[in-house]
């Protein structure tokens, strides 16, 4: 048994989802899309004996047209998977707009249950909704809710189960589109039944006819696949005829009349319609989105978020590190006591301590980061941040919301790439993900600070690091524009975004949000990091006689092989090997140098390096480190978030090529200016 959960954005859909399913949820992507998919089993206490019910959370949409991928996913799910019940969460204080989606579900023939959420808000605004009347007019059960307070959830589960079992009958509704359109629809339906019976069976002839008149690209292409003879001018003639009669585009008329139908329902079921007024949210917005105050406030909030994530995270991180250290020593003595072969001990150490340990060390930061994001989202601030930053971000090919993801990159690109989930448009999200690794994360900063201190006078070191930041900003802007021009599939869509009223989030909601996202990170990135750590260990310690990471090891040999590629940049095999290790985690670059030059402590490593390299070479190396291949944890999340190896591979390739070009330019310009 499958329940599908649908609704407009900001109607408390995820709260209802959490209340129905509890903590056992599976989060992934919809096939072939970068749209988040959540599903979970209905809580045990709601389940009835035989068939367990699964709840699938559909993407939040305003309509079921194919304008956005989300809309298409929701529609296809209802048509193809045929859920036993579609639960449409509706904001009771905003009936008119929300019922538009409900009307479309009815048209599609879904077994609909309406969850009338936020009854308290509607009540406060003096709206009296006649629930019984509404249910009568819509021909489906309507359950009032206050999901934030857990009110009505039990009833919703009960009614949905009854509806799924067919114990509550739906009354099909048919929207009257007016005499002129109805005639066209009837003619078209006849054709559909004759020419494409298979599709007519699946979608219903009337629904197909409405969609064809609406010029729905997805439906029209499906019709054409089925029968070439009726597609093209044959179909167009219907909408042309209708358009001539109406004197305006058919799709507009259809949407208006659908709203007309809804208005009819509202007139007889709502006692008082919402009044025009300036609400408190608008007054807060006067300050938050003020052209002068908006950006400073935004920066302040970002700063606070950073503090929360990285300052609060630091002691926790140290704690985790200590824990891993303790675990490692226990593991060592345990392995020693059972006389395990050295290769096995080493492998286990690398896999568990370096591999899994590396993931765990990030965990406190990631938890806090997702908490911070949940706060920004659930209060409604995220929409305002996008509003405030939109102008600057649009100029470099990005979206207002991209900025949040970019800022997070300064901490760690892994959660930053994941934060791009808040972007709803696929192009915007992909571009944001691809430029994200260009933001220098804390690990790379560590490398820069170390090398700058070793090669430059203290007063110059700061400027050196700052110049790297500048390079990073320039590249983000350049790549953002380039990607927008080259890989964006759609025309840039104009900015249209709802500003939900400010809202005090519930603790439970925040923690659920935080936990769900963290779980995904641990599961997906975790397994990948574990595997790569083992592979890297193998390459660095074999063949058997080789020293760990030495010239005879596979990794050392690889360094020698790739060396010619890096010779034009002035890196020898050691530099190359250090960069290969940097793929594991950027901060490893320094310890790799330690191994390669046979120096243990950082201070003497600095002076050893200073003898081997010129400052310009060091700077070129830093530029390369700044830009080249994101670490594999980042690659893993890029793969996970874009749902494609192609984009993960592209991120590796473009960043490395870009790094090479930038480093080459810096080397030659630097030499020409006499810094060589």
């Amino acid at each position, binding site marked *: 048994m499958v329940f599908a959960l649908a609704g407009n954005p900001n109607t408390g859909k995820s709260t209802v989802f959490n209340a129905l399913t509890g903590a056992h949820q599976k989060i992934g992507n919809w096939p072939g899309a970068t749209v988040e998919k959540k599903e979970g089993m209905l809580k045990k206490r709601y389940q009835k004996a035989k068939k367990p019910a699964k709840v699938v959370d559909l993407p939040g949409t305003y309509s079921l047209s194919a304008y956005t991928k989300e809309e298409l996913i929701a529609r296809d799910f209802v048509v193809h998977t045929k859920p036993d019940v579609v639960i449409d969460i509706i904001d009771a204080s905003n009936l008119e707009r929300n019922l538009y989606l409900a009307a479309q579900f009815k048209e599609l023939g879904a077994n609909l249950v309406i969850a009338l959420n936020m009854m308290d808000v509607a009540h406060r605004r003096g709206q009296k909704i006649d629930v019984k009347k509404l249910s009568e007019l819509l021909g489906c059960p309507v359950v009032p809710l206050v999901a934030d307070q857990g009110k009505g959830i039990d009833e919703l589960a009960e009614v949905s189960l009854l509806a799924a079992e067919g114990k509550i009958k739906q009354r099909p509704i048919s929207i009257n589109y007016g005499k002129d359109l109805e005639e066209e629809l009837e003619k078209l339906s006849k054709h559909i039944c004759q020419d494409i019976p298979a599709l007519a069976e699946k979608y219903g002839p009337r629904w197909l006819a409405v969609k064809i008149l609406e010029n729905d690209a997805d439906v029209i292409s499906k019709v054409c696949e089925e029968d070439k003879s009726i597609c093209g001018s044959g179909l167009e003639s219907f909408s042309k005829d209708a358009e001539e009669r109406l004197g305006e585009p058919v799709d507009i008329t259809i949407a208006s009349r659908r709203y007309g139908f809804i208005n009819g329902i509202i007139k007889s079921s709502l006692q008082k319609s919402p009044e025009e007024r*300036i609400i408190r949210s608008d007054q807060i917005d006067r300050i938050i*989105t003020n052209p002068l105050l908006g950006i400073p406030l935004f920066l302040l909030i970002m700063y606070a978020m950073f503090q929360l994530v990285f300052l609060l995270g630091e002691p926790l991180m140290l704690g985790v590190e200590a824990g891993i250290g303790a675990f490692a020593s226990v593991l060592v003595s345990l392995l020693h006591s059972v006389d395990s072969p050295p290769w096995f001990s080493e492998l286990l150490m690398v896999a568990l301590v370096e591999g899994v340990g590396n993931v765990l060390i990030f965990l406190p930061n990631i938890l806090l980061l997702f908490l911070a994001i949940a706060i920004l989202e659930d209060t409604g601030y995220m929409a305002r941040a996008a509003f405030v930053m939109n102008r600057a971000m649009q100029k470099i090919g990005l979206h207002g919301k991209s900025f949040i993801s970019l800022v997070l990159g300064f901490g760690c690109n892994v959660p930053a790439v994941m934060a791009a989930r808040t972007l709803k448009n696929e192009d915007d999200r992909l571009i944001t993900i691809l430029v994200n690794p260009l933001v220098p994360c804390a690990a790379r900063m560590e490398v820069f600070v170390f090398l700058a201190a070793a090669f430059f006078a203290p007063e110059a070191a700061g400027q050196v690091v700052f110049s790297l930041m500048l390079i990073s900003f320039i590249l983000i802007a350049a790549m953002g524009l380039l990607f927008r021009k080259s890989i964006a599939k759609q025309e840039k869509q104009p900015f*249209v975004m709802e500003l939900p009223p400010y809202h005090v989030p519930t603790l439970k909601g925040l923690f659920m949000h935080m936990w769900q996202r963290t779980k995904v990170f641990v599961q997906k990135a975790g397994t990948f990091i574990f595997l790569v750590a083992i592979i890297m260990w193998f390459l660095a310690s074999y063949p058997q006689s080789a020293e760990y990471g030495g010239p005879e090891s596979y990794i050392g040999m690889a360094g020698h092989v790739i060396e010619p590629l890096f010779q034009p940049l002035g890196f020898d095999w050691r530099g190359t090997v250090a960069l290969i290790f940097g793929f594991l985690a950027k901060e490893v670059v320094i310890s790799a140098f330690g191994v390669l030059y046979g120096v243990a402590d950082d201070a003497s490593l600095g002076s050893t390096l200073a003898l081997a390299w010129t400052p310009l070479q060091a700077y070129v190396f830093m530029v390369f480190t700044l830009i080249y291949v994101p670490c594999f944890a980042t690659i893993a999340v890029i793969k996970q978030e874009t749902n494609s190896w192609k984009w993960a591979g592209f991120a590796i390739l473009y960043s490395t090529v870009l790094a090479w070009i930038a480093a080459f330019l810096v080397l030659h310009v630097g030499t020409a200016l006499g810094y060589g």
Partner: protein
Amino acid sequence: MPRISLRSLNERESGVIVKINAEPPLRRHLTELGFDPGSVVTVINKGASDLMVIQIKGCCRVAIDTGMASEIIVEKMKAGIPPVQGRGMRRRRRGCSER
């Protein structure tokens, strides 16, 4: 009634949607979002240079490009709808008249 673009309405002025000049998919999206011909929209906030906040369907706030707003044609409503102030403000006003 004069037909003007949504962009040229001032804050707190209302208009009735007449038509949207945009590519069909976007036009339909906006229509479905609540910019359907015949419905009333009110400008809530025009402070930013690139975006404006519009009230649609008597409730929701939607931020849209000013560029997009100039392609939405409205019939300006004569009086506009006087925004009814929040409860707090009304109380304050009553306090003044009592004094």
